[in-house]
């Protein structure tokens, strides 16, 4: 508590500036989405606070309280209590199937009065904290298998619990911890395999297996052609190449088998929609199509603030929560979305820059965990609105309507800012 006086001086105001900008722009978007030209609501009207824009204003207000709470806590609290926070959230995740309520078809919410909270949103923060704490031990070396295994376990337990409550989208967010682990020394082969696996997954859906085989053999051939003469004569090279081709082919076939036999019908359809937007035009295709129509109709300059028709008149389902990017695209056009993407990349860059300044591995690892989570949301959320990612219930950080989402991202971010403001007090190892 002794440091609270210095927080003002040490906190990274650039990051705070980004936060205020995002939350502010996000609110304006939600306001525009609920704005009705027939009956505009004024702030003095009680009905305003029943609208999404009014509620979001309340969420923003309460977030300020959360920020103060986070900032007044001792910076050592987060490292010391990481395990308890983690275990506490696991308990909540276990309890939610029994004590929770169903909202929007998802049985993963707790209800306190009129407020609803989704523990899965907060599990990311807890996992990031525990992972960072685990990596803070100088003996932990992520290039060694036992440590990799334990780190994976920390990530996997909440993931499994979230999948169990049917929130596959939220569970997939945990894949973003690969960025944290990679930065902290996980061999590059893992993220490479991960990205390769996704590439295989997509190509397995897009093209027939024999085409993949032909492409693989051709690329192996080209590889041989460009190799130095001496290694071409080494039979081991050919053996390795053949092994590589066989391994990738097996992976491709495995993916195909997984898609066809393990994935549930609705999950398979979400992916099919990506490849064939005309598929299921009334159901899943509808959301993708309408979202693209909203963004596409924005044109270069957009229709202007409050000028959107698609998002305003409910053509895009979930347009204030997961599909909030559509409003930006429709009302502010290509200029607006480009500005927004560049802003987000700048924000991530700032956070990574700050994270690398940390002397403590805990703070640095947590920082990259934060960056990974934000990036993953950014990737999937925007990707799904423009038809590059399957539809899953993943909000756009700071922009999407919803208390759980705003609160959890606020806490996630401000814990890092708190740690960062004390970076000179922390021990460097």
């Amino acid at each position: 508590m002794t440091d609270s006086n210095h927080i003002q001086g040490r906190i990274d105001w650039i990051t705070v500036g980004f936060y205020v900008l995002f939350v502010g722009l996000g609110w304006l978007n939600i306001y525009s989405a609920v704005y009705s030209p027939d009956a505009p609501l004024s702030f003095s009207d009680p009905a305003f606070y029943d609208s999404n824009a009014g509620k979001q204003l309340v969420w923003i207000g309460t977030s300020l309280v959360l920020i103060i709470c986070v900032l007044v806590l001792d910076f050592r609290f987060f490292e010391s209590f990481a395990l308890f926070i983690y275990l506490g959230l696991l308990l909540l995740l276990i309890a939610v199937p029994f004590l929770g309520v169903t909202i929007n078809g998802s049985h993963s919410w707790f209800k306190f009065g009129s407020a609803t909270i989704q523990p899965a949103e907060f599990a990311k923060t807890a996992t990031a904290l525990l992972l960072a704490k685990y990596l803070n031990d100088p003996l932990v070396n992520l290039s060694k298998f036992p440590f990799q295994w334990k780190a994976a376990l920390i990530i996997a337990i909440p993931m499994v619990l979230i999948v169990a409550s049917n929130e596959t989208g939220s569970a997939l967010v945990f894949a973003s911890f690969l960025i944290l682990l990679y930065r902290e020394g996980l061999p590059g082969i893992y993220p490479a395999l991960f990205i390769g696996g996704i590439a295989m997954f997509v190509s397995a859906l897009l093209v027939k297996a024999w085409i993949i085989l032909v492409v693989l053999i051709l690329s192996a051939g080209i590889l041989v052609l460009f190799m130095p003469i001496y290694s071409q004569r080494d039979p081991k090279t050919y053996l390795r190449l053949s092994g590589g081709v066989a391994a990738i082919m097996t992976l491709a076939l495995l993916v195909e088998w997984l898609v066809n036999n393990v994935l549930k019908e609705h999950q398979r359809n979400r992916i099919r929609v990506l490849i064939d937007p005309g598929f299921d035009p009334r159901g899943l295709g509808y959301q993708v199509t309408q979202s693209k129509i909203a963004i596409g109709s924005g044109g270069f300059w957009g229709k202007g603030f409050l000028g959107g028709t698609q998002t305003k008149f409910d053509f895009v389902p979930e347009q204030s929560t997961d599909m909030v990017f559509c409003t930006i695209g429709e009302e502010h056009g290509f200029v607006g979305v480009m500005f927004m993407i560049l802003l987000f990349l700048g924000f991530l860059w700032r956070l990574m820059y700050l994270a690398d300044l940390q002397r403590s591995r805990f703070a640095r690892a947590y920082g990259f965990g934060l960056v990974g989570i934000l990036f993953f949301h950014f990737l999937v959320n925007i990707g799904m609105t423009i038809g590059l990612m399957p539809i899953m219930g993943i909000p756009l950080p700071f922009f999407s309507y919803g208390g759980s989402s705003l609160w959890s991202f606020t806490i996630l971010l401000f814990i890092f800012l708190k740690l960062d403001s004390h970076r000179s007090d922390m021990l460097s190892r």
Partner: protein
Amino acid sequence: MFNQRRNLIFLFFAIVGLLFIGKLFFIQVVDDTYEKAADNNAIRKIIQIPFRGEVYDRYGKLIVYNTPVYDLYIIPRKAVVKDTNHFCQVFGITKDYFVKTSQQAKTYSRVKPSLFLKHLSKEQFASVQDAMVDFPGFFFETNAFRTYQSRSFSNALGYVAEISPTTLLEQKGDYYRQGDYVGISGIESFYEETLRGQRGIKYRMVNSNGVEKGDYKNGSLNVNPVSGNNLYTSIDLAIQEYADSLMKHKVGSLVAIEPSTGEILAMVSAPSYDASQLTGNNFSTYYQQLALDPMKPLLNRPPSAYYRPGSTFKLVQALVGQQLGFIGPGTVYSHAGSPVKCHGHGPVNLRGAIRVSCNPYFYHAFRKMIYDNTTGDTYERSAQGLQRWSDLVANFGFGRKLGVDLGNEKKGILPNVEYYNSVYKGNKAWKFSNIYSISIGEGEIVVSPLKMANLAAIIANRGWYIPPHVVKGIGLKKVIDPFYKTPVKVGVEAKYFDVVIDGMQDAVNNGTVGPDGKIPDIKMVGKTGTSQNQKGKDHSIFIAFAPRDNPKIAIAVFVENAGFGGTAAAPIASLVVEKYLKRKVDRKSVESKFMQMNYLPNVYSAGGVSRKKVTTDSTKK
């Protein structure tokens, strides 16, 4: 240790960011299909059809107006009918219709309105008003029907019907949509653009449930409907109805024009039809019946039918011959040397030739007009002579359109050099002996009743006419195209008309017109004609104007298959003239005789005249 990894990670982020920007550029800037899709989604274009202009007669009597009718619409999502039997009873529909139409509407859209029942009358509309509270999800939209005050004048008025697929395809611009009503013939067609007004368009925003959410762009794109302009016609409805009654049981035309203005006072096409039956639900059955009728009731004969003018054309010959300087009041011809026959009488001068309608006289006069030039052989001289003649005759409106404000005006035929060159396949292939039939209005010359009424007006005016027209004022300011105000000179000096009018006076008083065609107290002058008809009995023609001094009415009457011009056409014309000038008819016996006279052929053979040259001798007056 792994510091450079931050850059690798950011590189990955940046690639994803660029990928998104690229994709966004494509869907927002390059591809414009999304914009259209968005408008289809959220913007509902509502068309407001304005009232079509009304039509009045020359004294301000209403001829055509609009009656509101009511169309019932359904919004399936909101529609609740607890008692289907009650509903069917109220609207007078069968249960089958109810089920079928509701299902169709549901298939089209659950949230958008569909037409449920068309054209309810004001009375029906009033009678269901109380019951409407029991039927949520149903509502009325007002529409309008053309309504006709009189059963007369249908052909010249034309009618209004749903636009045909071909018209829709060939329209200039894109004003009309499928299902729109459009004027089909007569003045409804000619004045379509002024009658229809300007359609209103409202752009309303709708949400995904089809609920309206206000004007798109604050209504800045909306267009208010503008009602169509009223038309003030020159028709005298009383005369029109009287003329109609005289033309009953006959096939033919009657056109009356005020000579000083070119205003058409009456225009009858017989047989006609009941325009009021060409509105609404009865349209297609009645239309079918009319279209298949061999008497062609849908044809507006006055501007469109083809006839030979017969002896009435001798008036033109008399005028043109004088103007060209070949004949004069004192020119006398006998029957000698003429291939066309006549009745037994001695040599006559020009006035006498018109009185008795002497065929050889006009043969000789025409021969002189054609041959009286000095250069070349008979072929070349024929060509030169005919050219000079036809140039002057064309001024009377023959062989071209007069420009009447009705659809489907036909040009007719005025044979000239070009025409005969094509008929005889080459110049120098024909000469006077091939073409002399036209000297007495037979042969290749073809006219419409309107042109002959206009001829009567030209003679009444002694050398000029104003293009005949039905509409004398449009809209509140009653403006009119200056074309219908400007006199056209025919190029024959006024002095040459005296002898012609004298001849016409004689024709009525003691010439070819019988006693039924004489009005005791009105000086009417006229000329009979008989139009050769190779398919049946000849057509009776009469053109006239009255009074002789200060003419008020010029008239042409054509009665098909009625034979000699003095028998049917002249009495009918005289009755209309009497009625117009005196507002009453004293000759009641003549009136009832011709109202009842039936000249309908037993088997009507459709079609105009053959263009084949008439070689047989003509003895018609």
